[in-house]
């Protein structure tokens, strides 16, 4: 008899299909519809993936911040799993930002990297989440390690507004096109391509976060089952 799909499986499948369709739509708009930018040329099309990746990093980092804060307050496994999944999502999209940005910069600025405030704070943020992952992977899974990781997750979250407002407060070379003070996207197809990129990366971040969350929760249940088994004198795990 076929197993009935749980509601969460149906939601996940829906998100997955939407992410695929939106990614295909974004690719079509970015490469075939959106016009080439007048000053920078074709390399400006990196923008349609670079900015959504940064936004997806923010989403993951926010998940980590919420999970870490809740873990420091309540100390439940579920919140620890949310923080861990958020940090992993933030690292993936943070690495994408850190790779696509310099490839754009070498064309636009003539160099891969400058110690611009936004670049520096973004790099710092990615390094915080890399440190979080390294700590969780090699630092053990005890209460002290979890709390220390939660403190890192909290610190990473506190860095987010600094990244966001660094361009306004300290100027720098990094362009500001979207939002207050930005010149905006002048062509309608540019706006559509950007919107599709943002939505596609939101769904992509959601499914990556969810899949890592389920693994983290399953890991927590397994550890619990192993401890119970050991208490009953069954097996010797780890």
């Amino acid at each position: 008899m076929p197993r009935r799909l749980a509601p969460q499986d149906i939601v996940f499948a829906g998100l997955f299909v939407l992410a695929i369709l939106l990614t295909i739509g974004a690719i079509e708009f970015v490469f075939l519809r959106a016009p080439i930018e007048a000053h920078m040329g074709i390399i400006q099309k990196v923008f349609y993936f670079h900015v959504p990746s940064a936004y997806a990093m923010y989403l993951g980092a926010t998940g980590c911040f919420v999970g870490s804060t809740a873990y420091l307050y309540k100390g439940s496994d579920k919140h620890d799993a949310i923080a861990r999944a958020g940090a992993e999502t933030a690292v993936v999209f943070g690495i994408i930002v850190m790779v696509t940005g310099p490839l754009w910069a070498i064309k636009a600025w003539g160099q891969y990297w400058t110690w611009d405030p936004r670049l520096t704070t973004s790099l710092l943020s990615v390094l915080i989440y890399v440190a979080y992952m390294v700590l969780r992977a090699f630092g053990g899974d005890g209460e002290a390690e979890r709390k220390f990781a939660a403190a890192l997750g909290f610190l990473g979250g506190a860095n987010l507004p600094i990244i966001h407002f660094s361009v306004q407060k300290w100027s720098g070379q990094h362009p500001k096109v979207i939002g207050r003070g930005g010149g905006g996207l002048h062509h309608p197809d540019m706006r559509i391509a950007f919107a599709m990129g943002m939505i596609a990366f939101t769904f992509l971040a959601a499914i990556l976060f969810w899949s890592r969350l389920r693994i983290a929760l399953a890991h927590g249940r397994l550890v619990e089952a192993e401890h119970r088994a050991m208490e009953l004198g069954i097996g010797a795990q780890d």
Partner: protein
Amino acid sequence: MGDWSRLSTGQWNLGLELKTESLPTMQNTAPSGSVTVAESPSDRASDFRAVRDGTELHSGAVLLVEAYAAIWVILFAFVWLTHRRQRSLDQRITQLEQALDKARKESS
């Protein structure tokens, strides 16, 4: 004040040549297309000419493809790491199941 009339008469040629030699990057990465160079040092001092039919120093199209490829390589690497983590969990579940089976047999 400097005597700018010397610029057009070629009296500053030596200085201009040294400046040109101090830009090895531009010389080394010269495009493969036909290049129009000044006839003499005095020409280099008085006008600048563009490279004709040359390629860009950094092709925007190539950089765009590299950036786009990097995105998918990173995402696939993440999927691979997720798979490895799932496999690790599977192994531990299998060990636990075997231990439970063993305990059940011993108790019966």
